[in-house]
């Protein structure tokens, strides 16, 4: 089974390199990240035996990832909304739209 997982990981590595040379516009980043997440999941579940592990182990990994997301999402909530207008709806509408278009 380990060899099968290894083969899958190799396929995904090839895929991610290949995709990097194709211009998908805004999609390149999500695609690269998704492939990396799939690869990491394979390693965690099978090489690291989490598939067969206790609920507690899964809970701990989940907790770690949850707080990692908290760090990312709440920090970015600041940066993404920095340019947003503080003016009431109407006056600053155009500014807000242009920001969300970024």
């Amino acid at each position, binding site marked *: 089974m380990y060899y099968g997982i290894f083969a899958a990981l190799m396929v995904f590595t090839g895929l991610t390199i290949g995709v990097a040379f194709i211009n998908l516009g805004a999609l390149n980043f999500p695609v690269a990240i998704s492939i990396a997440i799939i690869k990491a999941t394979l390693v965690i579940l099978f090489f690291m035996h989490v598939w067969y592990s206790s609920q507690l182990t899964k809970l701990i990994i989940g*907790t770690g990832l949850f707080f990692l997301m908290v760090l990312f999402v*709440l920090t970015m*909530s600041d*940066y993404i*909304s920095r*340019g947003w207008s503080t003016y009431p709806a109407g006056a600053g509408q155009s500014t807000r739209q242009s920001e969300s278009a970024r």
Partner: protein
Amino acid sequence: MTTPLLPREHYLNIRYGILSWLLTKDHKRIALLYLISVTAFFFLGGFFAVLIRLELATPAGDMVSSDTYNKLFTMHGVIMVFFFLIPSIPAVLGNFLIPMMIGAKDLAFPRLNLLSWYIYMLGGTFTMWAVIVGGVDTGWTFYTPYSTAASNTNVVATGLGVFITGFSSILTGLNFIVTIHRMRAPGLTWFRLPLFVWAHYATSLIFILGTPVIAITVLLLAVERGLHIGIFDPALGGDPVLFQHLFWFYSHPAVYIMVLPSMGVVSEVVACFSRKNIFGYSFVAFSSLAIAVFGFLVWAHHMFVAGMSVYAAMIFSFLSYAVAIPSAVKVFNWTATLYKGSISWQAPLLFVFGFLGLFTIGGMTGLFLAALAIDVHVHDTYFIVAHFHYIMVGGAIMGYMAGLHFWWPKITGRMYPEGWAKFSALVIFIGFNLTFFPQFVLGYLGMPRRYHAYPEEFQVLNVMSSAGASILAVGYVIPMVYFLWSLRYGRAAGPNPWGATGLEWTTQSPPLTENFPMTPVVTEGAYEYSKREMRVV
């Protein structure tokens, strides 16, 4: 009641010699190693605080130079936060008590436990070295770009000291979580655990999840300063505010690292000295977890004027109110526990009364700071200084003192002098309020923190504060003296001088190396005082 005698063999006298301490794997001996080191750091940090207050007794910066003053408050902060408050209760009382409270022979990883003390000492050595060769002047917050580009003091050494010490916290937290999950005695279900253990479980979660972030942040800071790698450098287009986000992601939850264990102590002491079940056990237990989790969602309320987005500020303000609720729930539950209790006015309970009053004020003033509009005015003023001292000194240290007194008979086998202890509780309470209450007023008047010299109209309040600080200092020296005195002259305590429930009181004081002669079996909840026939042994 016959006078108890000290047991013939216990963890303190089973082996002698310096190596038997430096190489010990016994959690109780490691706790004592920590006790000695954090006490040393406490008095060092306190010494800096006294110098700060002396300087501020007059408006002009006349006692020390402004560079020296800046170093004084920085080192006061760094030492108190990273080397005293964070390790104090977990590494001393937690280390000593968690295995005993859950009926285990030791923590899950005794060698790791010893290692974490050595790491702590190594980090402390780095920091002390930085202090000795000239100090550091960035403030304990190390804000960039001051710390990376402008300061010409020993930022890298101090940063590495904090970085290293972080691993000590991580290992302690890891050890506690594994121990609480895997080492509980037969019959000790989660909801029979003492609340002290719940509090430490929540604290350990913060250790595990938060500490690595400060570690990498301080490391990046040191690398940026030392090797000119630019991550927060505004000259390159980097954002110094990112440093603040990463810093507070840990350093706000770190406040809960300080106060949660203290809350654990309060739960034990209140239940014991009112001989009553804790009111709303599961609410108190889960509020610890809620504080730990919500504590991670509120960090940017330290940054409301730091150039953050208005909308993000609102999110963080809202979440900050969410974390206030579990703290309020705890205070109400402790108060309700006293209702129809059998209340014995012993020193640990007096310290807890102090905790309740001071923590309530500290917590309520937290609402001022979470309120965006008021925070804009009082941010970086003495209002903030007063607020966090009410939480950290009035909350965390009061709880630590309560815990030290409560378990001192268990740790040493001897009683401390009760009268002196009550006296010191009173002195600390009065000195504390006199020191820090005027600072609320000063802060709202607009006196900024970290000021070496200040306008003359602030002097009266500053003099009050400095006078209070001298009383407070005496209040902390008294226990130091009588604790040392009691080591030799204290009356032997017996296994359970308070008539407390809890597994740690079922074994002799001081305990055996492996705590219990045989693994205990638990059949009831943690605080079944009212079912017991009281017999003090």
